[in-house]
């Protein structure tokens, strides 16, 4: 992990002005992704996962204020001039969105959408772009790709559409793919297929990937490293195996405990995390998870723990009272 990172997010904060006051969606996040590696970002709704991905792509809402640096391939995306940033997007940086119902243009055929992207970035002529589009569709597992090219998004199923969205994202061989909850809007049976497809294409193209999800189960088998976000901050970050072996942050543990277990008796209530995430327009003093944390003590309510390395350099967490490895609740 000490090799030069493809992407490094350094001290990035995103502030959104709202009628109720300033909303800090992302709070001083540091992350790195090496070339060809996969980073999972996990957290519940509203924890800033999507805003962080938008911040990396420089696609924040106009009123949002971004601070910090986003170094990609030796360039700071935050300060890059718009034209060069535009060329970088699509070509080196691509994104797959959550909902394939809305991420494809409803009035253009999928062929048009694919072919125009190819023509724009790779400067292929019409026929070559068409051939390549069909190859891409075949690569993402769409049968009869030539005919599909002439169809509109509403003629495809949700899983098919997400495959098309992935094909468009992969079309220009990006170095980094950001998958923002790529399976949340899909059937459970399709979810695994799409995730396997992403993993396969990633390996084949030696592409780095950021997999954003609220499901720790999705992250477990498919990432090299995991960052857990809560209330805009990264609260625990570790190589995937280390995280699942001995997680230290109580929030991570609570998230994992909230996944239904296949061997549990029917109607077993899930151990939900009580309470709600803090109001991001009103930052609280102390650890933002302390009101919901069962280990919270006096210090947790007064001071904010910082993300620090513990026993090994690549396992970091922000907690005063981490779970002792021996005392861990079996998950």
């Amino acid at each position, binding site marked *: 992990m000490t090799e030069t990172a493809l992407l490094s997010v350094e001290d990035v904060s995103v502030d959104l002005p709202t009628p109720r006051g300033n909303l800090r969606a992302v709070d001083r996040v540091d992350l790195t992704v090496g070339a060809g590696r996969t980073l999972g970002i996990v957290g519940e709704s509203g924890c800033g996962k999507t805003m962080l991905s938008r911040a990396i792509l420089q696609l924040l809402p106009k009123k949002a204020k971004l601070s910090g640096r986003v170094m990609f391939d030796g360039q700071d995306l935050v300060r890059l001039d718009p034209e060069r940033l535009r060329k970088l*997007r*699509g070509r080196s940086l691509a994104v797959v969105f959550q909902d394939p119902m*809305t991420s494809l243009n409803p009035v253009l055929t999928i062929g048009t959408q694919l072919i125009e992207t190819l023509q724009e970035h790779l400067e292929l002529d019409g026929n070559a772009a068409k051939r390549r589009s069909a190859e891409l569709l075949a690569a993402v597992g769409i049968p009869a790709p030539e005919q599909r090219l002439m169809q509109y998004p509403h003629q495809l199923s949700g899983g098919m559409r997400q495959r098309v969205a992935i094909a468009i994202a992969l079309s220009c061989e990006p170095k980094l793919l950001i998958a923002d909850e790529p399976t949340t809007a899909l059937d459970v049976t399709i979810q695994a297929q799409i995730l396997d497809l992403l993993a396969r294409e990633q390996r084949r193209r030696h592409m780095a990937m950021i997999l954003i999800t609220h499901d720790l189960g999705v992250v477990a088998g498919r990432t090299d490293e995991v960052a857990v976000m809560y209330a805009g901050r990264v609260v625990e970050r570790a190589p995937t195996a280390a995280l699942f072996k001995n997680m230290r942050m109580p929030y991570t543990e609570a998230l994992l405990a909230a996944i239904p277990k296949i061997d549990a008796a029917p109607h077993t209530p899930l151990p939900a995390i009580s309470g709600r995430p803090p109001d991001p327009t009103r930052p609280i003093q102390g650890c933002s998870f302390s009101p919901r944390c069962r280990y919270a003590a006096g210090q947790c309510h007064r001071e904010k723990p910082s993300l620090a390395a513990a026993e090994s350099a690549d396992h970091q967490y922000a907690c005063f009272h981490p779970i002792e490895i021996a005392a861990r609740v079996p998950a």
Partner: protein
Amino acid sequence: MATLELSIGEEVAVTQAPRARRLGPLFWAAIGWMIFVFAAAALAGLLPLPSPTDMDMLERRAPASVLHWLGTDGLGRDELARLVYGARISLTVGLCAPVIGITIGGALGMLAGYFRGRFESLVVGSMDVLLAFPPLILALAVTAYLGQSILNLTCILGVLGIPAFMRVARAATLTLARREFVIAAQALGATHARILLRELLPNVFLPLFAFFLLGVAVTIVVEGALSFLGLGVPPPISSWGSMIGEGRESLEVAPRLAFLPAIAMFLTVLSFNLVGDSLRALTDPRQGAL
């Protein structure tokens, strides 16, 4: 009381939803009439019609005959020829003016809806100013000042249509610009021009076109009103509005002179409204579902 009203409103909405998915016979009748009028107007020079301006003082207000199928008007001019040539004027103005509106208004609306900010405030503000001015008075003032010609008439009516088109385009763009596919296009490195023309325009065009057809209908009526007031096309050119105006003088002797152009205008306007409404109903639910 309030809850009662609310529940009635919901019932109405529910019963209306499945309606108008199909284009009924009325739609096709309207299309048929439009084709008929367009063909007649376009081929007016080729049809075996007498000149619409040749006067025959001996045959004033003559009834229908083999020579004059629909009779003659107060100055002995062939009524059918004047109707057909009048359709030319009414349709030219009726189509060209909304084209000005849809082009300028549509472009302004899309830019305003996409870029937001100060530009949007400026556009919306200036359109409000234009809307606040009584349209007929403006049209009267301009024709009186610049003179009567088809070009002037078209321009005035076109400019008057800009605010409405701007609003339709801006409203459609506002909702579309927040859809994920626009962000996806940005993430793929699309330029603003590309997003506006390739991603947004095809989506905005359908509601805009449906509104365009309604605009045609309104413009034909306004042109008729201006011509009726004597501020439309200069005589002896005929337009439906000026024909109604001229026929008014002999309403009790030969009512058909006013009613024939009125019926032609009524049917044409109704056709445009029907087609526009059907198209709008057709596009609305789909827009919502996507």
